Every structure is written in structure tokens, then in C-alpha cells.
């Protein structure tokens, strides 16, 4: 079996590793799938067929296709030779008088086992390569060197914007955990307990008893810090807002904007045209239902400590705590950067989390009413 051969002889491994590096969700199964397909005779006619095969098996969306094309080009043409031995190998095959198709095949299947010269022993340079134990390092190094080449650099950017710490899908999944279910509305679901009880009472089943279905009554209020030091995170905050509004299945979700700290007004729009006094905002909160999530760097992005900002924030938070039990703070800056800044101090007042999968889930947990005190940083 090809699968058990040493890794130098595995075809397309280079491409596979690079794609994994680039974040495509590929596992050993996907790799074996390509081997299996190759063995069954798919994608062996020419290079185009091979590209198509790998694309069908490894690429799952248009964005990934972009990444794939870039890496495939890199691996096949190899503008900056990663392994000198291989370029030599390719040169040899190009000069050999083999038919065109065969040539194409060999040049892309760098490691194809049919080639006689791939074993390290016959290639003198390969001993150097053996020292590079981590292929990842090499791949990175190549990426850095290729950055000089402008054409390629342009191609490295994809249309996707899913390279944030938390993807849209993950956000939607996490929002879903934020729920307090109550039965409400028209009776549509079968109430088995009540139906049985009725049958017992009446001796015969006349009609099933229905009950309203369960709906989520959590009302999310997302307060987003906008402009200033938050400019780099606008994409992230927009995504938070979008996923909460559309994919979250929350009872209700409202978005508010502020700058640095909510003082007198909160705004319904990013341009801060439609204002709502904070007093009105607080009056609308319903203690059992409302969950408030604040998205702000709390001064951690620029660093430094501002007593004024801390006091204003504390004032707002104190008022907020009177009206809502579920409050959490999401900080786009990593936890390590909070120390010594205003954010570090704010984290003592309210459970604060960095934006990562774990952090986001933690914030949602607090909004659900779990362990809010325990989450306070540095304790009280």
C-alpha cells in the first residue's frame, strides 16, 4: 500500500500540508480519499484532471477554492524551490523524452513512487533537508520569502473574512446557548402528559391536548463601542451584531452604539444620529429577561490608565446592575493586554472575556446566569 510508505514517497503531501496550514479542514481521511481515487484511476489523465480531483475532494467552498488554487500553483510551479532535490528532479524529467502526458503527471506528482530518483540516498542535497524536521517551519519560511513577489501576495488574500478568532458559524452556535425557554403563543405541540391524564379522566381519547411551543424569551442588548481605538474591530463588531440579529434565535436582539463609555446617550446607529438617553435604555430593561453584552476594548487597545474613563464606566455599570442581572463584557484585546490598563480595572467590576471561542462562550454563560461572580478577573 502506498499509504504505509515513508512520507517522501507520498504524492501531493506537500500540497496537503500547505492546505492544512492555510486552515482547510482536512484530515488523514481526506488524504486517503485522494489516494484511493488516484488508485481507481481518477485524475490521472493530465494536470487539469488532477487539479479537479483534489478540488472536488478537498475544497468545500468558493473561498477555499481560492486558497487551493494559490497553493496548488505554488506547489506545482514552485517559484522558490523548497527542496532543491525536487527541482533537479523536475529538470531531469523535463529533458527526458517521455510523452507529454506522462511528463505532466510526473512533474506534479513530485513524490510519486514510480520515479527512481526520489530516495534521499541518490540525491546529495537531501541530507540538509533532513535537518529541517518541521515541515511547517519551511512552509512558513517560503511564505515569507514569497511575500516579496507582489503578484503572489495579491493572490494570498481571499474574499473570505472568516479568519477572525471566532467564525460566524461559531458565533451563531454560541448565541444559541443563550436562552431561557418559556411556553408561549398558540398551542401547537402535543402535551402527552396532559393527554394521558385526560384519557384517564374521560375513559376515551377524544382529542389530544396541545400546548404552546417553547420560545426563547431572552432579550439581548448588545452595546458596541464604536470609532476611536475600536476602528480595527468594526468588522468583528458588525459580525457580532449580524449573527445576533439573524442566526441567534434570540427572543429579541437590539444593538446600541457608544463611544468609549456610555455616558448620557446610547445610539441606535453607527453614525450616532439616533440617540436614546441612557435613562430610557435602563428603564426598558427587564431584570429576568434582559442580557447585556458590552463589546469594547475598555482602553486596552491603546493601553494606559484613565481614571476618568474607569469612573464613568463604573457609574454606568452600577446603574446597569440595578436593572439587569446578566451582564458580560467582551474585549477584542487578548487578556494579557488588559493588565495595567483601564480594562484591567473594569474586569474587576464585570466579567470580562477576550474574543475567542472560549471567551465568547464564557460571556454567553454569564449572560445565561451562570457563575457570574466567579468569572471576575483578579477577584474583588
Amino acid at each position, binding site marked *: 500500500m502506498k499509504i504505509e510508505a515513508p512520507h517522501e514517497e507520498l504524492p501531493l503531501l506537500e500540497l496537503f500540508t500547505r492546505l492544512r496550514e492555510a486552515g482547510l479542514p482536512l484530515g488523514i481521511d481526506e488524504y486517503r480519499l485522494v489516494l484511493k481515487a488516484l488508485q481507481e484511476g481518477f485524475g490521472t489523465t493530465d494536470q487539469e484532471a488532477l487539479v*479537479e480531483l483534489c478540488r*472536488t475532494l478537498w475544497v*468545500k467552498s468558493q473561498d477555499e477554492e481560492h486558497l487551493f488554487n494559490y497553493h496548488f500553483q505554488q506547489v506545482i510551479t514552485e517559484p522558490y524551490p523548497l527542496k532543491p532535490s525536487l527541482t533537479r528532479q523536475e529538470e531531469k524529467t523535463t529533458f527526458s523524452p517521455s510523452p507529454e502526458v506522462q511528463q505532466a503527471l510526473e512533474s506534479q506528482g513530485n513524490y510519486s513512487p514510480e520515479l527512481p530518483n526520489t530516495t534521499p540516498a541518490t540525491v546529495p542535497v537531501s541530507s540538509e533537508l533532513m535537518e529541517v524536521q518541521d515541515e511547517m517551519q519551511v512552509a512558513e519560511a517560503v511564505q515569507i520569502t514569497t511575500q516579496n513577489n507582489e503578484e503572489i501576495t495579491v493572490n494570498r488574500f481571499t474574499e473570505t473574512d472568516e479568519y477572525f478568532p471566532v467564525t460566524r458559524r461559531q458565533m451563531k452556535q454560541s448565541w444559541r446557548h443563550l436562552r431561557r425557554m418559556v411556553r408561549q403563543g398558540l398551542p401547537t405541540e402535543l402535551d402527552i402528559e396532559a393527554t394521558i391524564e385526560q384519557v384517564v379522566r374521560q375513559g*376515551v381519547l377524544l382529542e389530544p391536548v396541545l400546548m404552546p411551543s417553547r420560545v426563547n424569551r431572552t432579550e439581548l442588548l448588545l452595546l458596541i463601542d464604536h470609532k476611536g481605538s475600536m476602528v480595527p474591530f468594526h468588522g468583528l463588531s458588525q459580525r457580532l451584531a449580524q449573527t445576533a440579529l439573524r442566526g441567534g434565535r434570540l427572543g429579541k436582539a437590539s444593538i446600541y452604539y457608544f463611544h468609549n463609555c456610555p455616558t448620557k446617550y446610547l445610539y441606535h446607529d453607527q453614525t450616532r444620529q439616533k440617540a436614546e438617553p441612557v435613562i430610557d435604555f435602563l428603564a426598558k430593561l427587564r431584570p429576568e429577561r434582559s442580557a447585556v453584552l458590552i463589546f469594547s476594548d475598555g482602553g486596552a487597545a491603546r493601553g494606559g490608565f484613565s481614571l476618568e474613563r474607569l469612573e464613568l464606566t463604573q457609574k454606568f455599570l452600577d446603574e446597569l446592575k440595578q436593572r439587569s442581572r446578566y451582564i458580560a463584557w467582551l474585549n477584542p484585546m487578548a487578556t494579557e493586554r488588559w493588565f495595567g490598563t483601564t480594562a484591567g480595572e473594569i474586569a474587576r467590576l464585570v466579567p470580562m472575556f477576550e474574543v475567542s471561542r472560549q471567551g465568547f462562550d464564557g460571556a454567553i454563560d454569564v449572560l445565561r446566569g451562570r457563575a457570574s461572580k466567579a468569572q471576575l478577573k483578579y477577584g474583588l
Partner: protein
Amino acid sequence: MVGTLDRKRLKYTGKVRPKPGEEDPETGQILYPYLPSEKLVEAVNLAIALERPLLLKGEPGCGKTKLARAVAYELGLPYEAWYIKSTSRARDGLYTYDAVGRLRDAQLAASKIDEEAAVKAKNADAYVELGPLGRAFRNEQPTVVLIDEMDKADIDFPNDLLLELDEQRFEVTEVKQNSPLKKIQAKATPIVFITSNDEKDLPDAFLRRCLFHYVKFPERQQLIEIVKTRFTVSPLELVDAIIDRFLELREEMRRDKGEAGKKVSTSELMDWVRILSHHQDDEILSKLKTELLYPGVLLKSWDDYRRYGEQIRTQPEA
């Protein structure tokens, strides 16, 4: 795996197509020829050989849904379609259990109205009805299964199908352990096509198990082929004119709305050609130059209608 040997021989070419006017023997619907691109044919064969579901994406109306029927037709295999709705649950595709019906029968039996109901109500198997995937599993032959617009369902829906698609078996929880319906194992691996319009993201764990193909909008030549195989009457000159006009409109829309906007699609072209074929050829040829005939067939929003439907009429005057 049973049927693996047979599968080796299954090869889709896209060349075997129904004759004009041929009907589906089961539903009585008219079958239309389907012209896949070479890459699509390769992807289908790959999916058959590797026994993996094939996920099809592409803009609406480019023929994602029709592929499955065409494959089933060429290979002479049974065909099951499962149209997903926003309320669909993964289990619906496998089986449904009529608990209320059984309760009713038990009641009828208890009140001595219907003696037969008593026998029936004792047998839980009678209330299990297999869904499209369930039927495909029970079939001796490999079945072509279409799971249409999977993205419409809940975001957890695809994950709920992982085991069933992977190991091709499921259990009916409602029936007794010794029932023949308890454990259903696929007799032949079904050929599964899944379409998605990208309304929701599909989970990675699910994507991992699928092959993916993006169905592209057909090239001009392919469009002509499609029109020619579908409609027998039109002379080449007319087909050319219609398709030119159609592609022009599409290009205009692409320029205005970008790649993501709704553009006229193959299926709309089919409708358009059908309505145009009721007219005299010369009449169409002369009119196409000045106006977009029957814009309502192609333009589906008021905005589009105003922008593209009327524009060409005002151009000659200006």
C-alpha cells in the same frame, strides 16, 4: 459492502438523455435532458466510486437539483428526492412514526368499535413509515438520493445526519428490539446529492465527509446545446439571437449588482425560450433588437423590471 462490485460498473457519462416528451414512469412528469459539464461528470463519478455524498453549490437556477434525476435516469437506478424545509428534522428523511395513529387505533380497539384495530395497534412496525433515505437504504439497488436545499434546515440538521451518511445505518427507536425494522442497514450504498444555496454555513464535520462541486453557469456554447436539446423547433439563427440577448442581460446585471446579486439563470432562459417559441421567428428576431420580450419571465423584482425591462425600449429614441 454489498453492491461495491456493481458500483465499479456504474459510470455516469451525461450522454444518455431522455427523448423529448419522455415521462417519468412513476410521477408522470416530463423528463428533460440534462447537459452536465465535463468536470461535473467527473465529480459525479468520483462520488460514486468513493461512496461519498456530493455537495453541489451554485447560483439559483443553474441546474443543481436536476442533476440527481439525470444521473438516476442514465444509470437506470431508483430515485428518491428529499426536499428540505425550514422545519425538517434529520429523522424525517429516515422514518416517521405515527404515534397518534397508533393511539387512535388502540382507542378504537378498547372501545370495541373496530376489532381489527386491536391487532394492528399491537404491532408497532405498522406505524413506521420510511423516509427517502430510509427507503434508499432498504433498496437492493443503489438509489440516487437528492437532499435538496439542505441549508434551509436548522444549522444542526447536517450534523444529525452524519452517522446515517457515514455508516449507512440507523435505528428505529420506537419499535421493539426484535423487530425486523429495528436496525436498518443499507443494502447498497446510495448515491447522495446534496444541494445548498449557502443560506446557512454547513458544519465542518459534515463538509469533511462530502465531495464538493461548484456548478458554474454554462458557457455560451453549452447554453446553445441546452436550448437545442430541449426545444426542437428553433433554427440556429434564432437561438443565437435569443442567447445573445440573454447573455447581454446577464452581463449587464453582473456589472450592476456584482457577483452576489440575483442574475437571470438557465432555468429562466428555458421559460423564456418556451414562451418565445409560440411566436413567429421573424417577429422575435426583429422585436428582440428593440425590446426585451416578456420581461416578466426574466426579471423578478420591480427594481430589475424597471432597470432592464424598459431601458432597451428607451435607448433607440435617445
